[in-house]
C-alpha cells in the first residue's frame, strides 16, 4: 500500500463522491484537487464551475483562488457572479450541482458557520464570511463539506448559521423555503461523515486508516452514530498517480 498524506486521502475521498455528469462547484484549495481528480477517476463527464463566472473550466494550472484568472482556462463560457449563481439557482442546472464547501464550525445537521465565534454583535473571532457558501448551500441538491476535525469545530450549536445544512432536521429546509437537499458528506482529516436519510443527522461513515471511531468522536463536541462506520479504503496507486502526476504535480495544494 502506497504512502499518502491526509490531504491526498481527503482529495481522493471527495473525488469518489462525485458522480458522472455532475457539475462541481469548486472553492479554493483541496476542493479543486477533488474535482480535477474526479474527472480522471469515475466522473469523466463531470464539469467544474466557479462562482466568479467560469463555466466548465479545464484548469491547466491550479488556481490559488476562485478569483484567479486561471479558472477561465478552456471554459465553455466566462462571465461573472450573476450568471454563475443563476446557474446554481436555476432548477434545471442547479439540481445537478454538487457544492464543495468548508467552514469554521459545523453542527450535527451540517449547518455551517464561516462568520463569527461568539455573539454576532460582539464577536470574539471574526472570519471572512459567507462568500458564495450560503448561496451554494441554499440552491444546490447536495454539498460535500471539508472540515478540520476539532472539538471546537464540530459543535452542538454553531455560533452563527451562515450556510444552511439540514437546518433543524428532515423538514427544516422545506419549512424555510429551500428547495434543494442538504449536505451529503463531511470529509475531514480523520473521517468521512454521512447524513442519515431519515433523521438528517450526521453519522460516521468511515474513519481514516490509522484512527478509530472513538478517536473521531473525541474530536467532536456532539455525538454521532458509529454503528455504520468502516475503515476508509485507502487511495489506490492509480488514484494517487492521478493526483500527483496529473492534478497537482507541483504539490501546490498537496503540500510537501
Amino acid at each position, binding site marked *: 500500500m502506497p504512502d499518502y498524506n491526509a490531504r491526498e486521502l481527503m482529495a481522493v475521498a471527495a473525488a469518489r463522491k462525485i458522480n458522472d455528469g455532475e457539475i462541481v462547484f469548486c472553492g*479554493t*484549495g483541496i476542493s479543486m484537487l477533488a474535482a480535477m481528480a474526479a474527472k480522471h477517476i469515475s466522473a469523466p463527464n463531470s464539469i467544474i464551475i466557479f*462562482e*466568479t*463566472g*467560469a463555466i466548465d473550466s479545464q484548469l491547466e494550472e491550479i488556481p*490559488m*483562488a*476562485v*478569483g*484567479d*484568472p486561471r*479558472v*477561465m482556462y478552456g471554459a465553455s463560457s*466566462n*462571465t*461573472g*457572479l*450573476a450568471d454563475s*449563481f443563476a446557474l446554481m*439557482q436555476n*432548477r434545471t442546472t442547479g439540481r445537478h450541482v454538487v457544492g464543495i464547501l468548508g467552514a469554521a464550525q459545523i453542527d450535527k445537521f451540517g449547518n455551517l458557520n464561516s*462568520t463569527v465565534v461568539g455573539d*454576532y*454583535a*460582539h*464577536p*470574539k*473571532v*471574526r*472570519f*471572512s*464570511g*459567507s*462568500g*458564495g*457558501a*450560503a*448561496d451554494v448551500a*441554499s*440552491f444546490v441538491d447536495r454539498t460535500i463539506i471539508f472540515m478540520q476535525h476539532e472539538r471546537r469545530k464540530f459543535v452542538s450549536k454553531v455560533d*452563527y*448559521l*451562515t*450556510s*444552511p445544512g439540514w*437546518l433543524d432536521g428532515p423538514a*427544516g*429546509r422545506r*419549512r*424555510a*423555503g*429551500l*428547495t434543494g437537499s442538504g449536505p451529503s458528506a463531511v470529509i475531514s482529516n480523520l473521517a468521512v461523515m454521512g447524513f442519515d436519510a431519515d433523521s438528517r443527522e450526521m453519522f460516521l461513515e468511515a474513519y481514516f486508516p490509522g484512527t478509530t471511531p472513538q478517536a473521531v468522536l473525541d474530536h467532536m463536541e456532539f455525538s454521532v452514530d458509529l454503528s455504520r462506520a468502516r475503515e476508509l479504503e485507502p487511495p489506490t496507486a492509480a488514484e494517487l498517480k492521478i493526483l500527483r502526476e496529473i492534478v497537482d504535480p507541483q504539490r501546490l495544494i498537496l503540500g510537501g
Partner: protein
Amino acid sequence: MLAIDRLHSNQGGMAPTMDTSTEKVMDLHAAVSRFVPDGAHLSIGGFTCNRNPMAAVYELIRQKKTGLHLYAHSNGQGVDELVGSGCVARIEIAYAGTGRFAPTCIRFRKAVESRAVAVEDYSNYQMTLRFLAGAMGVPFMPTRSALGTDIIRRWGFSEQERRSDPRLPDEKLVVMDNPFGAWAETERVVLVPAIRPDVTLLHVQKAGRDGTARIEGLTFADVEQAKAASHVIVTCEELMDAGELRSQPHLNQIPGIIVDAVVHAPHGAYPTACYRYYDYDPAFLNDYLPVLRLRPGLPERLPHRSHGR
C-alpha cells in the same frame, strides 16, 4: 459640462448625474477628491486577488478619507487596506479575503472584533443581486439564498439606525411568500434591497477618453456595481481613443455615459492580478501579513513598491 458641475446634495449622499461628454480623463487625485467625499457610500470592483482598484484605494488612503460606507461582495486587499487605514465606518459584505494569501483579511477581522467598523453580512449572490437591482433601478431582487440562516435573522445595523438614515433601506431584507403560488418550484423568497453607491471604483484593462470601458476576462460584479452607482471612477491599464474601443462595441461592458472619470493608472490593480497584464504578486501578499503585524500603522509603505505615488 462636467458631471462635477451638476453635483448637489441629495439625502446626504451625492445626487446621481450623467455625463455625455467625450473627455473625462483626469488624474487620480482629482477624480478621488471630486467624487469621493468623506462619508460617501462606496463600492469597489474586483474579487479577492483579482482586479481590485488598488491605485484608487491607495489614493483614498492618501487623502485620508473617513466615514466611508463600503459595499463589497468578495473583496480582499482593497477592503483590508481601506479598513486598516481607518477610512471605513460601515461595511456591507459577503467575504473578506484574498484567497490562499493572507486569507484572513487580518485588519478587517480586527476592526470587526474591536467594533471599529460596523459590519452587516450578506452572501456573494445577494450582494450581486443588490448591485443588479441598483443597476436596474428596482428596489429589490428576489432569491432563495440564505433562507433559514442567520444572514436573514441577524442585522448588522439596527432598525433605529436604518430608519434614521435615508441612505439605508428600512429593512436589511424581507422574506415573502411567493405571490405566484409554487411557481418556479418556489414557496418563499427573500427580497434583497438595491444598493445605490455614491461612487464605484473599477480597475479595467482598457478605457476610452469618453468613459467607455472594456474588462477582459472575469467581470465579477463590476458591471452591475458601475451601473448601480451615481458616479463611476474607472482606472485603466491602457487609455485609448474611444473610436478604437467603439469599433468592437460588443467587447465593452461599460458605456461611457455612466462614467465620470477615467484615470490612466498602469499597474493600478497591483498587488492583485490584472488578466493579460500581470498576475497577482504572491511575494507581496505573503509579506503583507508579517509586515502588518510588525508595523500596523504604515499602510502607505507597501503600495510604493509598485506604482510609486
